[in-house]
Each structure stands twice: as structure tokens, then as C-alpha cells.
């Protein structure tokens, strides 16, 4: 347990340092209104990061999450808005498709990185088919939900907390979560213990699909309309978020709180660089430098922990 705490300490620290820097540069951000503007676009990123975390939990990687979220956003802005029943059925089918992919990857021993890369073109194509030109509209309830004026603390802060808590209880405190993490830890052992790896991997992928759908829906709630290319960046952001939040590519070592904090940190890092008035040519590089810095510090921490 203390290992998990230490794992989480660093992402929290990076977020606090960045937040302090942003408040120093832009005191106006230190308000209900400011925090909301700073963090509301982090909600879909956090959900996408959780989705990616489910895949990384079983030692795979998902290169299609960006286009999948775009696809879900397009479905939400068209079918869910116009004919809700069909819309939700499509989204449910998409989650099912994710679960089936997980089963297929396990059954045939396929590399997930290749399968999801292929699927990214499928989702991207479907998104363009559904919404050939940017448009659509957000369902009214979704728009209201995403612009909810929660008391005292803005929704942009409340939502990530709720997401992190819910996933924490699902993954860290329920038997399902423990078993799923076991798949990442040692799948042979799980199989010998009598679990069906096909079912387990399918469930992990299904969960990833569910959070991908939620990411797409929340994104449309924020933007009020969709675009077939709306979330392409989420693929890399989500992987970086999981790792930044203390997760590791192998061994089922993941942290829901860490992943959400990682997503918030990445979003904040972009704002920080923009407030610094750094030239855009340098911004991507600087974002990468922040990432490397945090990971380097983590490595030092872990080494020290090992020595002690």
C-alpha cells in the first residue's frame, strides 16, 4: 500500500508545482471561473486516459483511442441527439466491439499494438462516414451536465475526482479489479488458477470501450458539436497520462488517481507554456521535456526506494 502511495506522490507533486506556476503567471486562474476554464477540457482527456489505463493494465497498448473517442463524439452529436435509442445502441455496440477485440487478441495471440493501430483507421473511417463535414449538436442534457454550476468547486474539478474515485473502487477495491490487474501481473498464473483469460481480457477491453464512449460524450458536451478529427491527440495524451500518473507498461501496475492526475497535469502543462508565451515551435518540445523531467525524477525516487 505504501508503495502505491509513493507512486502517487510524484504526480500529485508535479500537478501542485505546475498549478502554483500557473497561478503565479495568471492570478485570474485562481477563481471558480478560472479553474473551470483551466480544467474542463481535461475531463474527456481524463476519461480517455482511464480507458487507456484499462488496456495498459493487461499489458497491452491502445493506439486507436483517439479515433475511437472521435467516433463516439460523432455518434453522440448525430444519432444520440436525433434518435437517442439508435444512438445508445451504436455506442453499446462500440463497447461490445472493444470487448470482442480483447477476446480476439487473447484467442489468436495477436499483438494489441497492431490490432488497435488497424482499428484506428476503422474508427476514423466510421467517424467520417457518420459526420462527413463538421457539425451535429450536443444532446441538451449533456450540455447542461458539462456546464453544471456545482457549488463552491467547479465541475472541472469535481468530475475528475468523481471519475478517479469510481475507478479506484472498481479497480483497486473490487475483486474484479484485482483479477484484471492479475492478468497484467502474471497471466499464466491466472489461467492456472482457473480464470478464462479470454473473458478477462475482453472485460478489460470492454471497460476501456466504456470509458472511451464516456470521453467522447463528455467532449461533445463541452464543444457542443463534433468533428471527425476532434480527438486524434488523445491517443498519445492518454498513454502519457497513464505513465505520468505512476503507471507502468507491464505488470498490471496502474493507478486510477494517478492516471486522472496525469491527464490534468498534461492539460495544465499546455496552458502553462501558453501563459509563458513560449513560441509554438518550442511548445511540443517543452511539453516533452516536462514529461521526461517527471519520469526522470520518478526513476530517482524508485532507485532510492530500492536501496533503502
Amino acid at each position, binding site marked *: 500500500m505504501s508503495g502505491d502511495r509513493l507512486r502517487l506522490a510524484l504526480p500529485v507533486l508535479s500537478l501542485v508545482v505546475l498549478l502554483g506556476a500557473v497561478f503565479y503567471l495568471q492570478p485570474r486562474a485562481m477563481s471558480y471561473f478560472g479553474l473551470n476554464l483551466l480544467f474542463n*477540457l481535461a475531463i474527456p482527456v481524463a476519461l480517455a486516459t482511464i480507458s487507456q489505463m484499462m488496456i495498459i493494465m493487461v499489458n497491452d497498448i491502445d493506439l486507436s483511442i483517439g479515433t475511437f473517442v472521435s467516433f463516439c463524439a460523432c455518434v453522440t452529436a448525430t444519432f444520440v441527439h436525433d434518435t437517442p435509442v439508435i444512438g445508445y445502441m451504436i455506442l453499446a455496440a462500440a463497447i461490445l466491439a472493444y470487448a470482442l477485440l480483447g477476446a480476439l487478441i487473447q484467442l489468436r495471440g495477436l499483438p494489441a499494438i497492431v490490432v488497435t493501430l488497424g482499428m484506428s483507421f476503422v474508427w476514423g473511417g466510421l467517424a467520417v462516414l457518420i459526420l462527413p463535414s463538421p457539425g451535429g449538436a450536443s444532446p441538451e442534457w449533456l450540455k447542461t451536465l458539462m456546464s453544471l454550476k456545482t457549488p463552491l468547486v467547479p465541475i472541472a474539478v469535481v468530475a475528475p475526482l468523481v471519475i478517479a474515485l469510481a475507478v479506484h473502487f472498481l479497480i483497486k477495491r473490487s475483486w474484479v479489479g484485482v483479477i484484471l490487474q492479475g492478468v497484467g501481473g502474471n497471466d499464466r498464473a491466472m489461467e492456472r488458477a482457473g480464470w478464462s483469460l479470454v473473458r478477462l481480457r475482453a472485460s478489460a477491453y470492454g471497460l476501456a470501450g466504456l470509458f472511451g464512449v464516456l470521453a467522447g460524450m463528455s467532449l461533445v458536451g463541452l464543444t457542443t458539436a463534433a468533428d471527425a478529427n476532434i480527438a486524434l*491527440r488523445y491517443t498519445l495524451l492518454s498513454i502519457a497520462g497513464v505513465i505520468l500518473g505512476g503507471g507502468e507498461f507491464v505488470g498490471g501496475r496502474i493507478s486510477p488517481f494517478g492516471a486522472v492526475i496525469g491527464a490534468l497535469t498534461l492539460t495544465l502543462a499546455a496552458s502553462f507554456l501558453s501563459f509563458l508565451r513560449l513560441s*509554438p515551435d518550442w511548445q511540443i518540445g517543452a511539453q516533452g521535456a516536462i514529461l521526461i523531467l517527471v519520469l526522470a525524477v520518478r526513476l530517482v525516487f524508485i532507485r532510492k526506494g530500492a536501496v533503502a
Partner: protein
Amino acid sequence: MTLKAIMLGAAAGITVFATTNVVADTSDKRIALSNNYAGNSWRQAMLESWQKVGEAAVADGKVASADAFTTSENQATEQAAQIQNMILQGYDAIVINAASPTAINGAVKAACDAGITVVSFDGIVQEPCAWRIAVDFQQMGREQVKYLAERYPEGGNLLEIRGLAGVFVDDEISAGIHDEVKNSNFEIVGSVHGDWAQDVAQKAVAGILPSLPEIVGVVTQGGDGYGAAQAIGATDRAMPTIVMGNRQDELQWWSDEKAANGYETTSLSIAPGVSTLAFWVAQQVLDGNEVPKDLTVPFLAISQDELEDALKTTPKGSVANVEYSLEDAKAVIASSK
């Protein structure tokens, strides 16, 4: 953070954003440019024009600042975050060249709700609270055919060079061309995709030429006239009138031909300086003037006599440009009322 601090922060935020609604005198107003992409010569020229006119306006005391921001990646979610940052930075107006007409609507609405004037141009946004300075691409196609009709009242055969297949701009320009051809004596005998690139256009034209009858004119979409000229020049055909698209290499070729044999044509495109038009429109809105929400970008046309001057001011590898003045903006606004 304590409850009191949060409430104080909220109150501070509200007062900051409530004071932006005062009209007239824009000397203390701050305008920001939100740009989604800077990776080609057109966008580079656009940013240069913004900087030039913005700095002059600040020096003249017309506005307090005119800062330009470009997202590090050409993504709508990045730009939405960028716009939300601008709201926090307390700008009075945000001028946008948008990555998507819809995907940043939420951020644009948030800006409008904070009392900020939002003007979009070139890549316009659909959110109704924003101003839109749009390009009439169909008109761009029509103008070309109209010019050719003046030159060849008796008509003849035309070759059409289109842009990138499946892109909205390509469909629009082509629709304008075909629409206007119906009102003329011309006939379009061939159509190829040049992808707005000289090398692609050259290959495409060279490929279709052997199958074509004599052509009197070539209608284009910009960035493809020079390639067409190279392809046709390599055959023994008489050089048709190729409508150019303001690119430096096109103007240079035209100028050389003009010196050699009095070649005549025209050239038109959208000047990257349209960012400065958007700047002045934003200033006019801040000034309290009534401005229609939908404005149209004027074309920058270069005629036979203006060629030398235009070529002189156009850097190699770039596109002919013009910066708009406050008076130009007023004229555009007046013509849309």
C-alpha cells in the same frame, strides 16, 4: 483552498469579466489572435501581416496589445484550450482562424459569455455569437470565367485544374466555375486534380494534354498555374490563358512571358493579410460600431499592369499579400450592411 478564498476568487473573476462591456475608445483594449496552424507560406505571411499591423496599431494607441498565438498542434481540442486560456488572460477580443468550424464552439461560447468579442476568419466558426469573415470560394471560380469571357467573347475550350479531391474548398471553387461556364460560350473539355501543388498539377496536365483539343484558357485554384504552364510549354501547343493564383513562381513566370511575348492573364486569390482585416473588424466591434455578423473577404486580384509591383513585394516561395487598413475594414463592413 478555503471556502473564503474560493468565494473571493470567484468574485474577482466576475468583476474582471464584467468590466469588458464598456464601448468606445479602444486604446486600452487587448486583442489576441488564435491560430491553429503555421506550417505553410500562406500562414507564415498571415502571421507576419498580423504582427506588422498589430504593432503599428499599438504604437498609434489604437489598441493596447495585439498578441498572436499558434497552437503547437493543428488540433481542435488544443485550440479550444488555447481560447479558454485567452479568456483567463483577459483579452477583450479574440480573432480566430479555426481548426474546425464546430469543435471549438464550446470555447467560443464561453468567450462570448465572458463579454469577449470573437471574430473568426478564413477557418470560420459556426457558433452564432461570433463574427465570421468568410471567403466566397464560388465567387472565386466565377471571377475566373468572367475574365476569360471578356478576353474570348466567342468562347472556346477550357481546361480545369481542381484542388484536393474531397475538400470543401475544391468543391466550392469548381461549382462556381461550372456555374459560370453555363452562362458563357465556353466548354470545359478536361478536368484534372492538381492538389494545389505545382508539381502535381504539372504531372496531371501533362497526362491529359494529348487527349485534349485546342484550349484557349485554363481555370485554376491557385498554386497550380505554374505547373500547368510548364506542362503546356513542353508541348508545341500555343500557350492558353492560364489564370494564376498569386503565388510568386506563377507571377514570375507570367512576368517573364509578358516581357518575352506580351502574354496576358489575371491572377486572384485570398491575401494572407486577411488576418489584419479581422483585426480591424474586431477593433470596430470593440469601438461600439454595429458590424454585421457575416462579412465576406475581398479577393486580391492582380491585373496585367499591377504585375510588376506585386512581384516586387512578394518574397520567393510566398504568395502576394496586402495588409488591410482601418478604412478597408470600414468599407467591407459598409458593403455588407
